[in-house]
């Protein structure tokens, strides 16, 4: 079935795509956008103009398709989805695809995963939520992402909830940190919701923030590892109440019988709060464009100014007027020309300046989870995820996708090798997407990858084909790189196949192997 579908699709579309490829110097760019630049783009362009930098060309449909799938749903497009998109002649097809993807279940999984990194959803050492609570916490976050819970309400729930860690899942926010003293909580709150590293603040400012978190009680119950988080008015404030100030310097009114967490949350989510909206807008920008307008996204401070202040202010305004609808923020960015630029810099002399000002889309290695899911998707392979501690060990069904893993303690050697964040701190830098020699070795030559390819149900028709010609090759390219091969590529690939035809299965395997090991597969671009 699969084979037939590919072949039909390929035959229908082959001539179109070939001419499209010819029209452009490479498969990654196109001459003109079919839509108009947005208000966001004007802000980016004007900054680039000031710096005398040129934006990259528009990215091709092939690049856009793959990019938007990977960025929005952490998942590759299928051959059918790709061919359908290429066949669509509507000028607004990119916007339509963005809307479709934002409604997908994988969107929920993937963005939940990102938030679980920030919110440290991990059963074991050193976070020690324990499995039951980690699952509950993950489920709550996932539901919030699925229902697109406005971000101010999301933050408020995490900051102000009271109750059992199993039943009122957002209370786990206060449990998922290594230091649960008021100063430790204050640092985590500042990192999570203000993008700031409070441990670098003057001591007094830290203490002020900590004062909002020094009436949090925790008690265990009869049930194993259940913990109740609650407002405990009997804890006395060491600070004189009148003197407590918010991080912006304004004075807080704390009544001795009122939960100070609520006072803090009220202040935090006010529209005029200078940190809250900025931190999340910057973070979301970074998650799509690989770099914050303020870099790094969790190190906002006066002496680390935004690369483009107007752009950041614009995103903040838009997010506030959208009532903290995060999907709307994503839509705004994804539909911009800025997001849809090619990854080939127009100006090869000032690349770093151009990168910092979003003059092109920066290539980044796929996230560990996305990469293994993509490999499994292409090959029909599976992965075993386990948690080593505590006994009895946790085992996960093998067809589970790693972007949906609920708990940072549940992992696999592949995820560990490819820099999945340990979820120890919630810092963005925990995720390491820099390719290493050991990773390269694994991808090029490991038995894991070799077995996946050789046993691939998805590639079976290709590997066992009596001969490989252009249509079969197009099917392979669509499966692995989500695009048609360019003429020059087809020539190289088919020549290789012809030369090694006596061992045709090996030759076909080598072709699949080469595409999987190409930069185009391994990097978002």
């Amino acid at each position: 079935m699969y084979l037939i579908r590919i072949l039909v699709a390929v035959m229908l579309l082959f001539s179109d795509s070939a001419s499209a490829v010819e029209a452009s110097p490479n498969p990654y760019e196109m001459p003109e956008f079919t839509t108009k630049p947005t208000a966001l783009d004007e802000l980016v362009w004007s900054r680039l103009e000031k710096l005398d930098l040129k934006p990259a060309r528009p990215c091709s449909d092939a690049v856009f398709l793959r990019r938007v799938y990977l960025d929005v749903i952490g998942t590759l497009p299928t051959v059918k989805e790709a061919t359908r998109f290429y066949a669509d002649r509507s000028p607004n097809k990119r916007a339509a695809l963005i809307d479709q993807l934002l409604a997908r279940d994988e969107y929920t999984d993937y963005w939940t995963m990102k938030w679980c990194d920030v919110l440290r959803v991990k059963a074991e050492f050193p976070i020690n939520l324990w499995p039951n609570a980690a699952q509950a916490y993950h489920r709550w976050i996932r539901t919030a992402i699925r229902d697109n819970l406005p971000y101010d309400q999301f933050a408020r729930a995490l900051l102000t909830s009271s109750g059992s860690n199993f039943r009122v899942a957002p209370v786990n926010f206060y449990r998922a940190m290594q230091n649960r003293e008021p100063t430790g909580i204050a640092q985590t709150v500042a990192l999570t919701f203000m993008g700031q590293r409070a441990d670098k603040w003057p001591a007094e400012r830290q203490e002020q923030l900590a004062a909002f978190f020094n009436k949090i009680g925790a008690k265990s119950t009869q049930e194993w590892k259940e913990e109740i988080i609650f407002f405990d008015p009997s804890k006395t404030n060491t600070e004189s109440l009148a003197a407590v100030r918010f991080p912006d310097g304004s004075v807080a009114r704390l009544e001795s019988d009122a939960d100070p967490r609520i006072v803090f949350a009220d202040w935090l989510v006010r529209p005029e709060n200078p940190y809250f909206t900025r931190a999340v807008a910057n973070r979301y920008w970074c998650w799509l464009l690989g770099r914050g307008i303020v870099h790094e996204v969790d190190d906002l401070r006066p002496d680390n100014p935004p690369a483009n202040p107007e752009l950041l202010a614009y995103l903040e305004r838009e997010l506030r007027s959208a009532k903290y609808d995060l999907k709307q923020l994503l839509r705004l960015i994804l539909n911009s020309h800025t997001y849809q630029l090619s990854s080939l810099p127009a100006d090869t002399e000032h690349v770093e300046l151009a990168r910092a000002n979003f003059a092109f889309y920066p290539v980044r290695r796929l996230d560990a989870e996305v990469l293994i899911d993509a490999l499994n998707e292409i090959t029909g392979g599976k992965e075993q995820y386990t948690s080593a501690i505590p006994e009895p060990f946790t085992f996960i069904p093998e067809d589970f996708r790693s972007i949906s893993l609920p708990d940072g303690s549940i992992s696999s050697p592949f995820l560990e090798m490819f820099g999945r964040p340990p979820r120890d701190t919630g810092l963005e830098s925990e995720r390491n997407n820099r390719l290493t020699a050991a990773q390269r070795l694994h991808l090029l030559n490991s038995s894991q990858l070799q077995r996946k390819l050789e046993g691939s149900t998805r590639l079976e028709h290709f590997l066992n084909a009596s001969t490989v010609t252009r249509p079969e090759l197009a099917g392979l390219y669509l499966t692995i790189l989500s695009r048609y091969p360019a003429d020059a590529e087809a020539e190289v690939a088919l020549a290789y196949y012809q030369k090694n035809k006596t061992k045709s299965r090996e030759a076909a395997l080598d072709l699949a192997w080469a595409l999987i090991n190409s930069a185009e597969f391994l990097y978002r671009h």
Partner: protein
Amino acid sequence: MKIDLYTDGTPMMFSDDPMTRRQALKAGLLATAGLLLPGRALVGPLSAANRASDPAAATPTTAQPRAKAVIQIWLWGGSCHIDTFDPKPTAGRDYIGQFEKPIATNVDGIQLNELLPVLAKTADKFSLIRSMTHGNNGHETASYLVQTGRQPGDRQVYPSMGAVVSLFKGYDAGYKGLIPPYVVLTEPQGRFSEAGFLGSRFKPYATGGDPGQTRFAVEGVVAPGITEARQQSRRDLLHNLNTLEHALKSDPQIENAAECEKQAYDLILGDAGKVFDLAQEKDALRERYGRNTFGQSCLMARRLVEKGVPYITINYKGWDTHKQHFQTMRRKLPELDKGLATLLQDLQERGLLGSTIVWCCGEFGRTPKVLWEAPWNGGRNHFGKVFSALVAGGGFKGGQVLGASNATGEEVKDRPVYPCDLIGTMYDLLGIDTNARLPHPQGLDTRVSPPLGDKTASGGRLVELI
């Protein structure tokens, strides 16, 4: 400085006032030549002067570090001290279970479990610490403690010793080998993120595969069934089809990818990967090590040391014997015996023992009192209060016993040794300054070892074994 005592009288430090430069100056210690060596100056002279008044202070163990490499044999799950290195023949059946006849060794006064005869003939090459203690009975927290020397529950996750050694002896310190500087045979421990805040770059390279098989198929290096010619031709194919890489040649990410690919192929096709080919060793020697995964891992570790790899962990699983304890020991101890003893002999025969530290222990001991009742039926549970470690080479003396447990192996009787003491001594032997800064992602001031006066308990460096 306020000093608290453990129940056994050991000092435990709870001061907020770690030794500072000011105090050092006051003690008149910085006027030494050590000042010329930034970051190395404090440890030596300071603690020497300080030792009399502060028993928990780090003590310099050696003036001339000779160790270049470390082989860590990790008895994953926690091995029982009294059934291995600390036999208690007079404690009665409730404690000693099935092993009633410890054997003499080639060092007077040292006895070992009866299933360790080869080690018994090698006792002059290693020393035993019979007073290891930390009191923690959880696998993950105890694993963290023993391999970092740090108390869990700090806000930070510190790197394990292997990650620290690969920081100070690895690529940033001039190591040029293609084999990563921190290798684990064959699977990562998975107990905690071994690299801690140093990040995934410092994680151990896990070989996968099984050195006990005819061909040790190191994951990534050896691809069974792919000839060298095919490797070469498909590499060319990849280069010809790598369109994006060609288009983005000067991008730093893509440049890095190309460099990684080159290194990977040096291992796959070049000579570097041959280190994993155990068939290059004589059959007689392979037999001596034992034809099993552990034995051949020991042999593999020696080969890696010869190639200059500074830290190798043998992750030796199967010691978590809540049930079937004695049956398991009868199977495992002979393996441990042959593998470890042959490793020490072989290192010495090749002149490598003097520069290679070998240390062997698990995250804790096991309950000295046998659990005869159901459901354990002759098992032993976790026991962090007392356990044993074996150390050899790299500057450690052989034939010594440091510390002692009491008659039943339930208490430390003499000279408690905490994980930070053992690790700190090994850092000294390696010439790694325990006060040196570790790079921290948030720029925090984090050091190799806990500062003096930290809440970390200490019995002092193992000067007795140097």
